[in-house]
């Protein structure tokens, strides 16, 4: 019996491997994506352009604008004459923000009177502009206390000490890479298993398989293992890359992460096989895989936090294996996640995999009868 299954597995692997293009896709695509996406997917704000309208005659506003030059948040600073020009620059997204200083700005500051900077921000990118506004205020605070010191004025003391645990410089890529690991494993495993049965059915080779002396569950195992092997291989390549190339710290247990990858793969493959046994054509199988992949990514907390979703949708995320996997992956990379917390995420994933695998098997058998 084992030799039959092993032969089947070898056949499946060969059919994946034989086509040069599909081989290239399996190996190169995930790696290219890991690189491109980890560098690209960031909610940090860098290199944005801003503009100023400076009606102030004094030097204080000049000094303040100089402060914006030094930071790597801001790339170019445009000088504009009036509001019409500002509207142009904002509308065409040349700049994300326009600061304007009024005529008597320097005079007020020198007298110790409160002065105001108006900031217009592009609400089309409300997240970016909120972050930019935060930076602007931080620069203002620094400038305030410098100016107060220079002219011996009284000032409000900065009285907050901030610490970011697990990621001292709050680098976005430390969050992206462990998450991408999950997403790339998911897409790879799903694409391999989701299409496998549908393709054989469409090409007519499935009937040949059925008339051979192989049991249905053996066929199913033969279809499960290639995705499992490809997914595990991908994880084993990517985890060291994350540490060596992206300098992501790895604080937890490697074997616990590998175990989680394994359970995660089982749950994904179950879904893939389920889709595959329902679909009549490859196109339907692909549609099914898409219908599953996008929601998984959106509902995983990778793109935007789960806590921001409406409550009913938060409940729905509990069915999403990717959600648990990303929690574990992020935790093991960055936080040395305690064993009990890993288990609290691993067990639901395991339950999901039991449901999806038995579901796929049941459905598969029914389709055959």
């Amino acid at each position, binding site marked *: 019996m084992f030799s039959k299954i092993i032969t089947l597995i070898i056949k499946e692997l060969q059919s994946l491997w034989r086509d040069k293009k599909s081989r290239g896709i399996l190996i190169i695509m995930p790696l290219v994506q890991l690189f491109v996406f980890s560098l690209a997917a960031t909610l940090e704000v860098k290199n944005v352009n801003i503009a100023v309208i400076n009606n102030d005659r004094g030097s204080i506003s000049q000094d303040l604008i100089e402060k914006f030059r030094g930071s790597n948040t801001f790339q170019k600073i445009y000088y504009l004459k009036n509001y019409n020009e500002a509207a142009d620059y904002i509308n065409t997204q040349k700049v994300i923000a326009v600061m304007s200083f009024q005529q008597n700005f320097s005079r007020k500051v020198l007298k110790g009177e409160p002065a105001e900077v108006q900031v217009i921000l592009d609400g089309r990118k409300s997240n970016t502009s909120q972050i930019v506004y935060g930076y602007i205020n931080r620069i203002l605070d620094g400038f305030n206390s410098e100016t107060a010191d220079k002219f011996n004025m009284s000032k409000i003391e900065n009285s907050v000490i901030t610490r970011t645990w697990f990621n001292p410089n709050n680098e976005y890529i430390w969050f992206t890479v462990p998450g991408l690991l999950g997403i790339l494993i998911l897409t790879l495993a799903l694409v391999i298993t989701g299409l496998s049965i549908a393709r054989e059915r469409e090409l007519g080779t499935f009937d040949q398989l059925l008339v051979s002396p192989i049991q249905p569950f053996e066929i199913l195992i033969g279809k499960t293992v290639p995705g499992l092997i490809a997914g595990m291989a991908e994880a084993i390549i990517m985890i060291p890359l994350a540490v060596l190339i992206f300098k992501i710290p790895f604080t937890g247990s490697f074997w616990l992460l590998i175990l989680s990858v394994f359970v995660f793969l089982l749950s994904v493959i179950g879904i893939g096989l389920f889709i595959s046994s329902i679909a009549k054509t490859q196109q339907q199988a692909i549609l099914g895989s898409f219908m599953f992949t996008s929601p998984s990514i959106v509902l995983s907390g990778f*793109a935007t936090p789960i806590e921001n979703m409406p409550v009913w949708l938060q409940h729905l995320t509990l069915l999403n294996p990717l959600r648990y996997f990303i929690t574990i992956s992020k935790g093991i990379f960055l936080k040395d996640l305690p064993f009990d917390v890993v288990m609290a995420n691993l067990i639901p994933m395991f339950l999901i995999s039991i449901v999806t695998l038995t579901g796929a098997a049941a459905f598969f058998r029914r389709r055959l009868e």
Partner: protein
Amino acid sequence: MKAVVIKRLKGLIIKETFQIFRDPSSLMIAFLLPTMLLFLYGFGLSLDIQKLKIGIVMEDTGVEVQSLVKSYTNSKYFDVKTSTDRHVFKKQLTSGEINGIIVIPQDFSKSLKKENDTPKIQIITDGSDPNTANFVQNYATGAWSNWQSQKAVTDKQKTQQLISSRPRFWFNPELESRRFLVPGSLGIILSISGTLLTSLVIAREWERGTMEALMSTPVSIFEILAGKIVPYFILGMISAYVLVFVSILLFDLPFKASFLMLSLTCCVFLFSALGLGLFISSIAKNQFVAAQISLFVGLLPAFLLSGFLFEIASMPKPMQIITMLIPARHFVSNMQTLFLTGDVPALLFPNIFKMFLIGLFLFLITAKKTVKRLD
């Protein structure tokens, strides 16, 4: 001659339309998938913080501390737990149960009473989610400053910052992230359905050998491609209008621009998205490979590199150049502007032009690759 071409083209288009209606999964890709995705993106994606869960460590329990904690509890941004021991929260921050910890130190009340001493608080955030960590820091600092200045008012001290700022957020004063995420997500949805559908349809013809059958007829390669594209183009336009209409109704979005500009943008975008699908199918020649390439160059780049969620200016320079090649990037920028700002020709036309160039390039290269030959 012309009449023959038109007649043949018509025949091909009719054949393709029949094929669309025969396999319902094509119609599902064109309508059901986009609508489902719109719901999902609209409800599921949000950068607006609902309630930040924080733990406050009260190492001091004086009257002032109570009042400070109260100002956090009363704020609509926080969901507050308190404890006198910081170890309780340490575990919770690690497991992600809370988003941040605020420590009010032992000497808080004492230094508050002293003449030239300012009490300090510590804000600890969870860096494994950097965006939320930023928000916790900003909001917690904000609430603390408020409390300080309120106290200063009651104590008759100097309160005003020397230079302060007043923000005005144009186009989206309530700062709802949905207002820019929904128009942006239309770009992703349409590139998925447009690119995926065309790449599969043509790859299927190759895989089943019917492409060879088509080639043995007197129709030219141009007619074959056009016959494939036209029905899916129409399908795409209908689904674009439906999506825009549904997002205005369902998510209560404004629509500031003209119908003409919307149509032009969608037209040219579909031209490039379908072109990408055609191009993929001409390389792939079977559905398995076509689907994988579509997934990798269609879905994920549209999601990550289009600027709909992640800011393009923040990416490394080479990556910014890559984003220029992705039609969805230009489309997303246009859609956000069409919904929220209005007709801004200086922004819309360059984007339309770039999408057109990408589309044209893809079509030419596909036509060149798909010469009538059997390999």
